[in-house]
C-alpha cells in the first residue's frame, strides 16, 4: 500500500504509458483511500487536460519555411566550395608526386654519374682513346660512334691517348689553316670557312680532327 509521500512522488505517473503497472495500481488504491491525494490527482488530471489542449493547439507548429531555405542555401554553398577544394587537393597531390618523381630521377642520374665510366675495353683498345663523355651522355655516345666509324683522323705526329679524358672542340676556321695540322688543302679553296671538330687531349693539344661531311668529301677527293 502506497503512503501519501510515495503518492506525491509516483502517483501522478499512473496515467503515463510507461508507468509501472504495480505502482499505478497502488496509486489508484491510495487515491481511493486518501481524500487529499485524490484531490491532488484530480487537480493534476485537470492540468493534464489543459496541457493536452496546449499540445493540440501547437501540434502543427513547425519552423517557418525561411529556415529551410537558409539551410538549403548553406548546404549548396558548402557543396560548391567543396568542389574546387577537392580539385586543389588532387592538384597538390599530383604536383607532389611529380616532384618526387623528378627528384628520384635526378638522384638516380647523379648516382649513375658518380660511378665508373662505362666504356667497353674493346672500344678503348681499338681506338686507343676513350672519352669521359663517351660513357655519360648523348654527345659522348655520338663521339664514340663517330670515332668508331673513323670520322676522326689522327693528326700527324700525335699518338692516340689512353687517358680517356679527351674533349671535342668545335671551331670554324679557314680551310687553309688545316695545312698546319698536316692535312692536304686545295689552294683554290683555302680561303673558305669550314667547320671542324678537334679531339683535344688532356694536355690541351689536338690529337685528331673530324671534318664535316662536305669538307671530308673534298679532302678525300684531293
Amino acid at each position: 500500500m502506497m503512503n501519501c509521500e510515495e503518492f506525491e512522488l509516483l502517483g501522478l505517473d499512473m496515467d503515463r504509458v510507461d508507468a509501472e503497472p504495480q505502482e499505478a495500481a497502488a496509486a489508484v488504491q491510495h487515491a481511493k483511500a486518501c481524500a487529499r491525494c485524490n484531490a491532488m490527482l484530480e487537480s493534476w488530471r485537470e492540468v493534464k487536460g489543459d496541457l493536452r489542449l496546449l499540445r493540440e493547439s501547437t501540434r502543427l507548429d513547425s519552423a517557418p519555411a525561411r529556415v529551410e531555405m537558409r539551410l538549403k542555401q548553406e548546404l549548396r554553398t558548402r557543396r560548391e566550395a567543396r568542389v574546387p577544394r577537392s580539385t586543389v587537393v588532387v592538384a597538390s597531390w599530383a604536383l607532389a608526386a611529380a616532384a618526387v618523381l623528378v627528384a628520384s630521377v635526378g638522384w638516380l642520374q647523379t648516382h649513375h654519374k658518380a660511378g665508373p665510366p662505362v666504356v667497353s675495353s674493346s672500344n678503348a683498345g681499338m681506338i686507343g682513346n676513350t672519352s669521359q663523355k663517351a660513357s655519360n651522355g648523348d654527345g659522348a655516345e655520338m663521339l664514340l660512334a663517330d670515332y668508331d666509324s673513323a670520322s676522326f683522323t689522327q693528326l700527324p705526329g700525335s699518338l692516340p691517348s689512353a687517358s680517356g679524358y679527351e674533349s671535342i672542340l668545335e671551331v670554324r676556321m679557314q680551310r687553309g689553316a688545316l695545312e698546319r695540322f698536316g692535312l692536304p688543302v686545295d689552294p683554290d679553296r683555302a680561303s673558305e670557312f669550314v667547320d671542324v671538330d678537334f679531339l683535344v687531349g688532356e694536355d690541351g693539344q689536338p690529337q685528331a680532327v673530324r671534318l664535316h661531311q662536305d669538307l671530308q668529301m673534298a679532302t678525300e677527293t684531293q
Partner: protein
Amino acid sequence: MKILDEKPEALLKRAVRGDEQAFLTLYQRHQSALYRYALRMTGSAWAAEEVVQEVFLVLIREPEKYQVERGELGAFLYGVARNRVMKHLERTPRELSLDVMNADGSAWNEPEDPLTPMMIAEKRERIEQVREAVLGLPAEFREAVVLCELEEMSYEEAASACGCPIGTIRSRLHRGRALLLAKLELLRDAPRRASAGAK
C-alpha cells in the same frame, strides 16, 4: 530503398556529401519537434526559429559531432537544441512572449471547433494560462514538463535528450508538476479571489 526508409546515419552521410534531398528528409523528420520544444522552452517564435536553424547548421558544418555509438540522431539534435535554448535563456531569462502566435509570426487562429464562442474563449484562456504557467517554471523543471508532458517522451527518451539519468528527469518532473499545479491554482484563483473581494 526509398529515401524515407533510410536510416538517419545513412541520410546524414549523404547529406554531408551535399545530397540536398537526404538533408531535407532529415530536416523534415526532426524540425517540427525541435521547433515546438524550443518554442515551449523560450516562449518566443523568433528564438525557436533561431534554435532550429542553429541545430541544423551544426549538422551541416560539424557532422562529426554526431557519433552513432553515443545514441540516436534525434537525441543528439535535442541535445544541441537544448544547449542553444539554455544559452538563450541565460541571455534573456525573462523574455517570455505570451502572445499566441503562429510560427510565421501571424496571429494564432482557433482551429475549426464546434464550440460556442463562450466555450472557445474559455478554452483559449485555459491554454493561455497553462502556457504562461509552463513558461514561468524554472528552466530545468520546464524542460522536464515540456519533454515528458507536452512532447510525450518516455523518461528514457527525455533523459537521453537532456543527457542526465532517468531518476533526475523523474525528480525534475515531479517538482515541475507541483510548481505547475501551484501556479495554475494561483492564476485561476486570483480572479475568483478578486471577484469574491469585490463582493
